[in-house]
Structures are given as C-alpha cells and as structure tokens.
C-alpha cells in the first residue's frame, strides 16, 4: 500500500457481475473488471447498472453512485451495499453476468501508519468496506491493526462474522458492546495513545471520531461520504467544510481526509 492514489483509466468500463449475495442487511457484489488496475484501501468507484438505470422511484437513478472498494485484486472487485434508495436497489438486484459501468479507482487512499503507531480501524455500518480492505492490506504488510465495527443490530452485524478478531458494538446491544463503536475507540486510545485512527461511517460517527482525534492529538484518517455526481472532481458537488475555512471536494481531495484538516462534519 502507498499514499499515492492509483490512477483511474480515463473512461468508464463495462464490468460484469460475478456474484451477488445477501449477508444480513447488506449485499456483497463481486465484479470482474479485467482491464482495471487494483484499487487501494480507501479508494472508490462510481457504479451504475448497465441497463435499467433510471426506472426507480422518482424516475431515478440518473447519476452513477459511489462505492468504496472492499477489496480488489486480479481483475476482481468487491463491494458491500446497503439498500437505501433507487440506485442501491437496482444494483442489489443485478444477476450474475449482467453489466455494470465502473469508473475508478477514484480518490485518495489511506496513508500508512507513521512513527510505528498502532492502527485503530473504526467503522460504522456501511463504513465497513474500506476498513476491511485496509485491515487486510496492513496484515499483508506485516502491520498490526485493531478492527472495531459498529452496527445498528444483529441483522446488520451478521456481515462481520467474516472478519475474525473484530471488536463489535451494536446500538441495541444484541451483539458485542451495547453502545457506540466510538466507545471502543476511546477505550483503545486510553489504553495506548500512540496510535493512528482510520474511520469510516455515518456523519455523526465520523464527527465523534474527528473530535476524539483532535482532542487527543492523534492522527485520524476519515473516509468521508458526500453526495456525488461525477466522482472525479468535475462538478464541485461533494464538498466538506475545512478547519481553515472553505471546502474540499471529497472525491478528489478525499475521500480519506485528515481529521485535523476538517471542520465539523455536517449531518446528512
């Protein structure tokens, strides 16, 4: 893994669905992307179904949708989707052999841990994919990582069964710690502050992580989300406010941003 982004080929490609399966509340989508380079943890793709894109509620989806790579190697890409609207609904009904338009890999990946710091990976719900990808890459690089995952309930937590050794938290206490995944993070930082935090999840959770990192002066790398039209810096639509004023585009300046660089993360 490196801190530089892997460049995207110029142009969207027709990838093919290898498999699509449901795990609890989520779908796992496996795509054959033979001509594309392997992504790095933190990078994402803009995806759209090859057919039937545009006939959902309110005559949508029209634009492609952003999804973090959950893994990628040897011409295969993995994604994890939560169905929340017409775009994810369409993608979650794709069948083996059907086509998907893919543009990517996009965005700046996670930078490596520095100064021998311990990597704390803290994910909430659908924020899991880039962290799972990262934890594998760190392991491959011979580095240690703590993986902490928070979910709404057991149905959502089911997907975590695949990731041995992860610390779990659920809002309803049905699995693991009863409470927020950021409680787990605070506990790890209490135990040993010589760490670097990697986080992805809903805005409220990321804001909590950002505050923790800033308050304790620990480096934090947050993989952000924002509504996107293009994913490659063209539309200026996907901005987050910066600590120093002004905005950054999540798609080209992120999605991974340093906690210290960010102002309060706006609620969705």
């Amino acid at each position, binding site marked *: 893994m490196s801190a530089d*982004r892997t*460049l*995207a*080929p*110029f*142009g*969207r490609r027709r990838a093919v669905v290898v498999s699509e399966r449901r795990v609890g509340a989520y779908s796992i989508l496996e795509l054959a992307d033979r001509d594309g380079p392997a992504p790095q943890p933190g990078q994402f793709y803009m995806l*759209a179904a090859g057919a039937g894109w*545009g006939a959902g509620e*309110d*005559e*949508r*989806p*029209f*634009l*492609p949708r952003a999804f973090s790579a959950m893994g990628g190697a040897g011409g295969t890409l993995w994604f994890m989707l939560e169905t929340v609207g017409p775009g994810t609904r369409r993608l979650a009904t794709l069948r083996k052999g059907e086509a998907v*338009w893919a*543009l990517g890999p*996009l965005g700046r990946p996670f930078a490596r841990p520095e100064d021998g710091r311990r990597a704390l990976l803290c994910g909430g719900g659908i924020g899991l994919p880039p962290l799972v990808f990262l934890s594998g890459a760190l392991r491959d690089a011979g580095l240690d990582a703590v993986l902490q995952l928070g979910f709404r309930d057991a149905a959502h937590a089911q997907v975590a069964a695949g990731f041995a050794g992860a610390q779990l938290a659920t809002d309803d206490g049905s699995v693991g710690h009863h409470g927020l995944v950021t409680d787990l993070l605070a506990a790890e930082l209490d135990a040993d502050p010589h760490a670097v935090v990697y986080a992805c999840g809903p805005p409220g959770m990321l804001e909590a992580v950002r505050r923790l990192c800033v308050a304790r002066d620990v480096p934090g790398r947050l993989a952000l989300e*924002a*509504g*996107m*039209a*293009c994913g*490659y*810096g*063209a*539309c*200026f*639509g*996907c*901005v*987050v*406010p910066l600590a120093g*004023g*002004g*905005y950054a*585009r999540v798609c*080209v300046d992120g999605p991974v941003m340093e906690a210290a660089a960010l102002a309060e993360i*706006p609620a969705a």
Partner: protein
Amino acid sequence: MSPVAFCGLELAHPVLNGSGTFDAIAARRVFGDALLAAFPFSAFVSKTITLAPRDGNPPPRLWEAAAGMLNSIGLPNKGLQRYLAEDLPQLAQLPVPLVTNVMGANAAELCALVEACDARGEIAALELNVSCPNVATGLDLGADPASLAPVLREVRPLTRKPLIVKLTPNTADVARVAQAAEAEGADAVSLINTLRGMAAHPDGSGRPWLGGGRGGLSGPALRPVALAQVAAVAERVAIPIVGMGGIQTAAHARQFLAAGATLVAVGTESFRDPTVAGRLGLALADLAAQSGTAAP
C-alpha cells in the same frame, strides 16, 4: 480530423464542455496524462471565474432529479489572480484552445476580468456568464436586454479575443437577449445555462434540500427547452451559437446543430460518462465538415 471554424479558432470537432462541468486540472490528478492523450473536448471552457475568490455554497450542493440534476455549487473559484497565476500554466498544457468563463457583479468587475484575461496569451476566447441562476447578479444581468446591453458596450472594446455571451434560459424571450448581445458586438452566444429549480428535503419538513436554497436544473430533463431556445435564437441572430442542455448522444448533438448551433457542449452527461464528449466529437467531426455548419 476535420477542423471546425468558430470565431477564428480552428477546432478539431464541434464538442466543448459546458462551463463548470469539467475540471481539467482535477481530472488530470485522477486520470493522469491519459486525459491529455484522449482529451474529449475540442476547446476547454473553464469554470466561471470571479474577481474575488469564492468558497461556493454550503453542502448539500447536489440533488438528483428525474432525468437530470439540480446543483447549487455557487461558483467556487480561486478568484482572478490565483486563476491566472496557478491555473493558466496548467491549462496551457491541454492539447486544445482555452475559453475562460468569467462573471462579474457589475460592469466594472466584468471589465477588470476581461482586461486581465485579454493580456494572457494562454486564453483563446472569453465567455461571459450573465446567466448563472445561483447568484442574483448573474441572473438580473442576462434576463433583460436593457440591462445587458450597456454592460457589453463597456466590456466589448477591452478585448479582441472572441467574446461569447452565455445567456440565461430564465427569461421570457431569450432571442431578444441574444439580439442585444449581437448588436453590442458579441462574437457568439452560448445557451442554455441551468433552469432555476428547487428540491424539497426528503424529511418532509418543507425546507429546501440544497444548502444554497434554490438550484439549477441540468441534464436530459431540460433538453426540449434547450432545443427550443437554441432554435429561437438561431432564427434571430447571425453570430454562431454554442448549443447545450441535456445532450447525451450524437443524435442529440445533431439536433442542436440542425437547429442552428455551430458548436455544442456537454455538461451533465460527462458526470455519468467522462469520455462521452470525445465519442460525440468523433461522430460529428465529419458531419460538421460536410454540412458547412462551421461559421466564419
């Protein structure tokens, strides 16, 4: 490829980008030099530049609509000085001519912008945005011939570079505004900019979704409106027209050319497919050469 003549420029094909819908500098960070090798547009139009830097509107800035989208970007840009100092050298590396789009709140601002751009050889042509629906001044200026004409009268003498006036569609009779632009010496007009629109927050509260309140509608949803406005303007002016609004395919582009446009621009469709404009350009280059739609 067959060159298309436009205001003294020789373009490889008739397809540009819509201002504010492609950032060549960011795209090069994402796609690398592959972008330059297959640059999709025959000239590159910059995002709107203003005199002072602007942060743009608070998020959310985007809303997906039926067959289109609303944006409320709010013209974020570095301001004239940093654009000239930082961006121009990078944009000069593009394999195509550069059109710089500028907006001023009044004639004095526009004059300052145009004078500064005139001095720079990297800039091949200027586009005046008098039509942005997100900023009150841009709207008022271009909606009414009587307010546009005196501004152009001041600005026009300040440059010999081709001057394109980008019209607002949010007006009762766009052709009258185009006629005023022609009468005041514009070399071309471009249209349409986005239609004023609004999206309600999905939480049902009734407050607007977009951080900027109102937004601008773009994409296929408005293509019939764009085509009608281009045709209406073509009936009334002799200067060349850059037609845009919802163009997705070569067939759509041909409809705009047949309605009287010399060039077309692709905006929103590039968000879905970043190389689409290059394919349209290829498909249209021969057509343009044959049919002589190219203006002098």
